């Protein structure tokens, strides 16, 4: 990557970074659920979208913004540690992009979904790993949080990432061509 990334990347990174900040600062980024961690987050989704659209550099940059916002705005003491809040988030973009690039040729639609899923899992796993390594959580607690929170988060991530990216790129999945409303038999 040259020392002068094009205007496209800068702007997309900035705009999606802005969304990341907004989500992190308002309650829109966190959906309260009755699980261990208390919320399902969607703040990592701009990172994944940025990575899929413009590459791993953009993804990493947005990840940094996500991390710093998390550090500054979170009330959970866990995230006041830069090693837990920032470092893991730098990898979300990279991994999401790799997954997307690898699967793109087979089926772009699935590639996007996979990036959404794995990207979210990356966030969950790396953050929890950092938390364990820094002795904030024990392994058992981390694993249980990871499962109860990580899976729903990943599912939500897939749905939103696919809707946003596929919609933006004007893609359609190869099978589904019908509206959800009409895909089943009408009840009599």
């Amino acid at each position, binding site marked *: 990557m040259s020392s002068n990334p094009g205007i496209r990347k800068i702007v997309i990174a900035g705009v999606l970074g802005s969304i990341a900040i907004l989500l992190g600062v308002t309650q829109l980024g966190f959906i309260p659920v009755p699980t261990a961690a208390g919320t399902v987050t969607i703040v990592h989704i701009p990172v994944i979208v940025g990575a899929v659209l413009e590459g791993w550099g953009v993804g990493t940059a947005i990840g940094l913004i996500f991390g710093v916002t998390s550090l500054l705005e979170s009330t959970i003491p866990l995230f006041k540690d830069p090693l837990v809040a920032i470092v893991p988030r730098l990898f979300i973009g990279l991994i999401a992009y790799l997954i997307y690039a690898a699967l793109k040729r087979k089926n772009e639609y699935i590639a996007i979904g996979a990036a959404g899923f794995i990207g979210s899992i990356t966030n969950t796993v790396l953050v929890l790993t950092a938390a364990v390594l820094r002795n904030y959580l024990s392994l058992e607690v981390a694993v249980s949080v990871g499962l109860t929170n990580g899976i729903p988060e990943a599912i939500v991530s897939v749905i939103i990432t696919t*809707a946003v990216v*596929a*919609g*933006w790129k*004007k893609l*359609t999945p190869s099978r589904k*061509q*019908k*509206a*959800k*409303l*009409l895909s*089943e038999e*009408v*009840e*009599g």
Partner: protein
Amino acid sequence: MSLPEFAVQVEQLSYTYMKGTPFQHDALYDVYFHARSGECVAIIGHTGSGKSTLIQHLNGLLLPQTGQVNVLGYELSKSKHLQSEIRRQVVVLFQQPEDQLFEKYVADDIAYGPLQYGLSKKEVIQRVKHAMDFVGLPFETMRNRPIYALSGGQKRKVALAGLLALDPRVLVLDEPTAGLDPMSRQELLYKIKRLSRDEGRTIIFVTHSMEEVALLADRVYVLADGSNVADGTTREIFAKRELIHRYRIGTPQSVELVHTLIANGYDMNSSTFGVEETVAEVSKLLHQEVG
């Protein structure tokens, strides 16, 4: 349940944004507004006149700080738990509604509202079909179209259909034709007229265009700087020349013509408005001159 005489009654409504902060802003002061069931009422006024604020009170998005807002028999500040019911019967189409579409396929986005209210799938499909056919997006061909493939005008139709699918008694429209090409504009205005005349729904719309007012509205409210300035039937408002000039509202070309002729000494009925009427009056004048 029979329809109340007044679909909307607003009395002495005041609203201040960010009260108590240094950014305080009085948006509405002692405003009144009434719409009878089945009427079509227009709200006109400059940007900053408080139109959007008033509109948001009509379906409970904003609750009155002082004053009363009565909608379809419900007193708004009191019935907080009826909020969702009110929103089903009084729908609001905001500006640039095409921005709010989020589903992939046309039918799904339109179905969103009715599904939220728990209607059965069968009923929802019926409603969606009816709404789509009404706005000019034939159900059979358009239901499975991806929304991103639609033009701006078509997307706006989808947004409108989404509201119609709720079968509302009152429709509030904030500058519904803003940004549309002339043909789409005409089409939309015609549909709104049908909603009012043929289906008897109460229509309240905000506009800057006097042509639209002339075409659709039974009565008009003029707002400026957060207060009422004038109200009356469309005819009455257009006749008030000084008013129109003072608030620089602008008049349809037909009304301008009439006023200019009167100013030049021709004897004409000053409350003439509407293209057909004006043509008739001017023809009469011409015949007098010639004959």
